[in-house]
């Protein structure tokens, strides 16, 4: 069995930041990053808009905290948010020192742009390829630290738990098909989100909730899983994201009559120039919900891929579009054959982000000793019921750095692995080996199961939810859990067997889907992105609390609750545009 002091699962923004934090604070520890794709392919690469941190003199940490908390409909833990906003500027500056090409003001200082739900402009950006630049900067910077080792294109299938602590993983080396146990004193899960549980998403093919499922199977609760963010502006068909920066630069959302319909949904009155926390710069949950309402009124447009509205950025002019939104133009030209300089962009809400995730404390530690988590896979929680755009990239850095330090401190105190772990690893190796041999068999195609899951999630856990639909979907997912046991695999090769990987990913997604549906059906209130048609109001008496889904083998998960930490901002009304 291979072995390291610290093992990080995931080479996205969070994983790489954590690895660097370990290397910098505890250079004697040996840290390895396991990733199922080369790190620079991780989905952080596709983030466009920017990363939030207080930098301008008229801004304040309290403002950032308040925007985050109210944006999250008072579900974020306020101690976590305070730590987050405090450490955010330092982390983004650190990125600057590592070479991230932040866009600049004429005098050479870092430029900021406004973003949805924010009172003051505080989003740092690198053109509209912020995530791309951040990920490549982090990856390239990580190369200079000798203690950081990598397992590129290794796919983790199990967390090894013995003696009440997590002591490593089992992973498949995709190129050779070798299944291998890797021991560790601490494991950090940074596997990103799970958008692929839904059919229509901005998320990449690799976002299957792997880490959430791995932790869930190891007995760790998943927190706030009912909160799924729909981004209001995705391209129909592909789901490719049109960044919020289009709206912060001054883009308008228009219904089929060319009317800025957001004014009908308590989001303010239209002004020609963008107004912060108003209209198009309202939070994502409210904008996506407004779309559904427009749809019900028959005021959306119909296209081959369903209903849509138009995003108008023509009035910004070619110069602004080319300098601040070049990627948007490229995507529209390449994937929709429209030129946003002259034409309207068709958009519709699209599944984008998981507010929920692996339950961790403010340092990224999970209830299972030795297991840590950060990034989109984790729920600290700073995002509550709705994440504000550009808080996630910053979260990767702040909590990536924190979790790296916390895990390093923990690992420095631990001894090596027990023998039971090796036996457990051998067992898992045998299980995967059996799956290889099952290739070439008969049975249902994976695509059928996936389609079933997509239908269930879309009808049950969409923008608006109801008891009946959630129950039906939960039943369906439980059927699929049985059906996946007998799926057909064509491929029995060991070399780069992507079919086997996809099958395991599908099983991860079903677990995550189960947790989402169960958490959603227990939360009989509406808050942020979780909107119940049968319980339209927020209910602070019963639900100012995080849900914790705990896996029950062979049964629906048990849902427990944990109160929200309130420090200085008592729950209030979410007010936008007034």
């Amino acid at each position, binding site marked *: 069995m291979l072995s390291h002091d610290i093992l990080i699962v995931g080479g996205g923004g969070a994983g790489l930041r954590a690895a660097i934090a370990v290397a910098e604070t505890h250079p004697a520890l040996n840290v390895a990053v396991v990733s199922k794709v080369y790190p620079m392919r991780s989905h952080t690469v596709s983030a466009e808009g920017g990363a939030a941190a207080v930098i301008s003199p008229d801004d304040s940490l309290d403002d950032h905290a308040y925007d985050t908390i109210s944006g999250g409909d008072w579900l974020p833990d306020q101690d976590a948010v305070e730590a987050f906003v405090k450490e955010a500027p330092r982390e983004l500056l650190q990125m600057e020192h590592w070479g991230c090409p932040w866009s600049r003001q004429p005098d050479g200082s870092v430029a900021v742009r406004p973003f949805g739900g924010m009172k003051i402009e505080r989003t740092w950006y690198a053109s509209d390829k912020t995530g791309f630049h951040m990920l490549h900067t982090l990856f390239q910077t990580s190369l200079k630290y000798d203690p950081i080792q990598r397992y590129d294109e290794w796919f983790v299938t199990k967390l090894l738990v013995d003696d009440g602590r997590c002591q490593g993983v089992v992973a498949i080396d995709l*190129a*050779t*098909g*070798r299944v291998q146990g890797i021991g560790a004193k601490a494991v950090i899960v940074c596997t990103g989100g799970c958008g692929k549980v839904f059919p229509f998403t901005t998320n990449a093919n690799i976002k299957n909730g792997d880490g959430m499922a791995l932790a869930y199977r190891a007995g760790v609760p998943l927190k706030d899983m009912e909160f799924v963010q729909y981004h209001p502006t995705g391209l129909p068909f592909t789901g490719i994201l049109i960044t919020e920066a289009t709206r912060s630069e001054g883009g308008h959302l228009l219904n089929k009559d060319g009317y800025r319909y957001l004014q009908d949904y308590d989001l303010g009155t239209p002004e020609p120039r963008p107004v912060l926390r108003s209209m198009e710069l309202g939070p994502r949950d409210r904008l996506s919900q407004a779309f559904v309402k427009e749809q019900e009124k028959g005021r959306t447009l119909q296209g081959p891929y369903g209903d849509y509205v138009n995003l108008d950025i023509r009035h910004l002019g070619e110069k602004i579009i080319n300098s601040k939104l070049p990627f948007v133009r490229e995507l529209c030209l390449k994937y929709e054959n429209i030129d946003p300089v002259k034409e309207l962009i068709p958009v519709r809400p699209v599944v984008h982000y998981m507010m929920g995730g692996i339950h961790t404390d403010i340092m990224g530690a999970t209830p299972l000793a030795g297991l840590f988590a950060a990034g989109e896979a984790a729920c600290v929680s700073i995002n509550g019921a709705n994440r504000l755009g550009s808080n996630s990239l910053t979260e990767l850095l702040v909590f990536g750095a924190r979790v790296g330090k916390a895990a390093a401190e923990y690992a420095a105190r631990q001894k090596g692995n027990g023998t039971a772990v090796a036996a457990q690893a051998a067992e898992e190796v045998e299980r995967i080996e059996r799956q290889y041999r099952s290739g070439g068999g008969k049975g249902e195609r994976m695509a059928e199961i996936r389609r079933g899951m997509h239908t269930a999630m879309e009808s049950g856990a969409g923008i608006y939810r109801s008891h009946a639909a959630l129950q039906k979907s939960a039943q369906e997912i439980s059927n699929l859990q049985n059906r996946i046991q007998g799926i057909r695999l064509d491929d029995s090769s*060991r070399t*780069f067997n992507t079919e086997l990987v996809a099958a395991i990913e599908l099983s991860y997604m079903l677990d995550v889907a189960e947790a989402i549906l169960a958490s959603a059906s227990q939360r009989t209130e509406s808050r942020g992105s979780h909107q119940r048609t049968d319980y339209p109001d927020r209910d602070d008496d019963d639900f100012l609390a995080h849900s914790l889904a705990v896996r029950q083998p062979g049964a629906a998960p048990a849902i427990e609750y944990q109160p929200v930490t309130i420090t200085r901002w008592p729950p209030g009304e979410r007010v936008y545009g007034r």
Partner: protein
Amino acid sequence: MSANPQHTPYHPRWYRAPMPIFWWVRRWIHARFILRELTSIFVAGYALVYLLQLRALGMGPEAYGRFLELLQSPLSISLHGISLVFVMYHSITWFNLAPRALSLRLGGRRVPDKVIAGLNFAAWAGMSAALLWVTLTG
């Protein structure tokens, strides 16, 4: 498909496509590249002819006259015709690639590649005209 391939588990045998000696005939863009490289033969070839002409010039009017006569032969004319095509190709590709080597900025903005290439072509035309003028008036 050949029989009995060797494969040990955990050590994938990579397939490496061999690069044929004449790889550049398979694809037009590569053939174009080799053609560009071959223009150098014509550049040097003409430089040699020119040198010989200068040598004849130094050897006196008769020698020079004989050389000019040689230039009038059909063989010479056709070789020069072909060479002209190649040296023109050299000039065109050379000037088109010039912006790659140069990054000029004026007033904080990068001079667009098209402009740099354009200036090169203008210089080419200007120099050619100058040489022609010298020849005609000289």
